[in-house]
């Protein structure tokens, strides 16, 4: 389709304008991480690195960060396995109740977090009699992360068709060999994309986490929530956010590169 140079320019202008808007509040965060005022009012009153120093020495942040990474990693892993299994079942077979299963997978992300949160909280404590812990967070996160993996894998499977798997089977490969040598490599970039999104969702989730976190299970968002509104801690939270943004660019960029390389090879 041919776009007039003008519409191209308008689109480009719009895109970069919105991107600028997206980054504006982040700039505020950066500014406040060096703003001497504890209440983070605008405009900043000067420059101080006190908060950065405090953040560097805060073992609470470090522990929360490690907890968050652990939770996100395990939840993502679970979501990858469960989401892929579901996508294979729903994309490759037809069976009674298929559309209900499809709806069920979407539900945890489609229902508001506060609903999922109290439902799981009530379920863990009231029904299953489980004490809340880091594992209840993992279970809750995995539950709503399944759908991101599921969506990506299902879309890929649909595009892939079955002929590669048939070819492999035709050439003598059994069910598992075919999955390992043919299906899985074809799913790689879809798994990467789905896993990334799942990881990001879990890493920054606060609402469901609030309801499912147990004693001592402080994820980073919970640490932020606990500290954001406390004396002397709020500016440190800004520092943490800035560090997160900076460090997230690398994995995001790498993943993007990796998945587009895989796409290109197709």
């Amino acid at each position, binding site marked *: 389709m041919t776009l007039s140079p003008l519409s191209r320019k308008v689109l480009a202008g719009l895109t970069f304008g919105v991107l600028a808007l997206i980054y504006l509040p982040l700039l505020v965060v950066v500014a406040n991480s060096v703003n001497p005022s504890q209440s983070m009012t605008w405009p900043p009153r000067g420059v101080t690195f006190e908060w950065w120093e405090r953040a560097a020495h805060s073992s609470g942040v470090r522990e929360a960060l490690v907890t968050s990474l652990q939770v996100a990693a395990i939840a993502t892993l679970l979501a990858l396995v469960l989401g892929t299994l579901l996508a294979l079942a729903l994309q490759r077979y037809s069976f009674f109740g298929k559309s209900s299963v499809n709806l069920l997978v979407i539900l945890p992300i489609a229902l508001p977090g506060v609903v999922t949160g109290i439902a799981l909280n009530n379920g863990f404590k009231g029904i299953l009699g489980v004490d809340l812990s880091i594992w209840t967070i993992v279970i809750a996160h995995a539950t709503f992360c399944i759908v991101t993996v599921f969506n990506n894998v299902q879309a890929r499977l649909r595009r892939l068709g079955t*002929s*590669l798997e*048939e*070819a*492999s*089977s*035709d*050439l*003598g*490969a*059994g069910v598992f*060999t075919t999955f390992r*040598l*043919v299906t899985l*490599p*074809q799913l790689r970039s879809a798994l990467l994309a789905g896993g990334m999104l799942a990881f990001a969702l879990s890493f920054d989730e606060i609402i469901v986490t609030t309801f499912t976190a147990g004693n001592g299970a402080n994820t980073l968002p919970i640490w932020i929530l606990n500290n954001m509104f406390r004396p002397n801690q709020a500016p440190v939270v800004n520092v943490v956010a800035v560090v997160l943004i900076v460090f997230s660019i690398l994995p995001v960029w790498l993943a993007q590169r990796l998945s587009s390389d895989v796409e290109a*090879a*197709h």
Partner: protein
Amino acid sequence: MSLSTSAPAEAAAVDRTPAITLRGLRKTFGDVVAVDAVDLDIADGEFFSMLGPSGSGKTTVLRLIAGFEQASAGTVELGGVDVTRSAPFERDVHTVFQDYALFPHMSVLDNVGYGLRVRGLGKKERRERAQQALDTVRLGHLGARRPAQLSGGQRQRVALARAIVLQPRVLLLDEPLGALDLKLREQMQVELKQLQRELGITFVFVTHDQEEALTLSDRIAVFDAGRIQQLGSPREIYESPASAYVAGFVGTTNLFDSATSQRILGVAGEHAVRPERLRLSAGTEPDSEGSARPDEVRLEAVVVETIYLGTGNRVHLRTSDGVELVALEQSTGSLDTREHRGEDVTVRFARADVVPLAAGS
């Protein structure tokens, strides 16, 4: 038509176990009957084609033989062994897919060596045999490439190499030339035929292209609505179509329904005449030459359209009582024998060339 279909070694063949035996094979998808009670024996080493329009069930039969589909009823035997319930990876047949189905994440050499890999062959032997198979299809120099870097014809040959490297007894080819342009297609036809002769493997070839089927096959099964309409050598199929359907699908033909036959030929029942059997002469001939010879049919007609084909002309005609005819004239070279639109012509053909068709199809 280039193939002799006479069968010289009949005596030897009779007690050979067929490579493929299908009995009462049936496949339904929900309410749709894709394959309906197919019985078929395909001999060892035969080049066998399944011809039919899309949706006629030919590809489903192929997939049933390969094991990608499970038969709803009936049996599939390979070399006398019942494999109806076996998985594709248990069957000693290999398939060349219509879209080639090359693994995009592997090099050409790894693609060809895949079947050897899953059979647990060592890397060295694997590479040697794969290289050999690539050499056979004249792609030995492209082993390091990815499938995406190959042309359509090259991919087609890789798919062939990937299948033959396993030395199957039977090779199934699902419209393998469908995606190629005409020139490449003709070239590949020759290569396929040669390959089959050299390897001595049974080829089961699915196509909707009647010319391709006629050119390549030892025998052809013409499919329609999930059933085999006619089975025979290319010559039998072409010269003696068993039904109006076969006559219409394989080549062009002039079909006479029962009433027309009665009027023109004096016999009831459906009949067919191939266009190249029709002879045309200009003008309505005077009665003085007498009526047609007893072994000949003579009709008067008007030229509706003439189409130049290079090797000759295709002439569309209509008789005075409204019967539409098509005639094929060989080009004689020097003279322009082309009939013109609106011209009156006399059409003759031998009664021997008229094929009676089985009723009801």
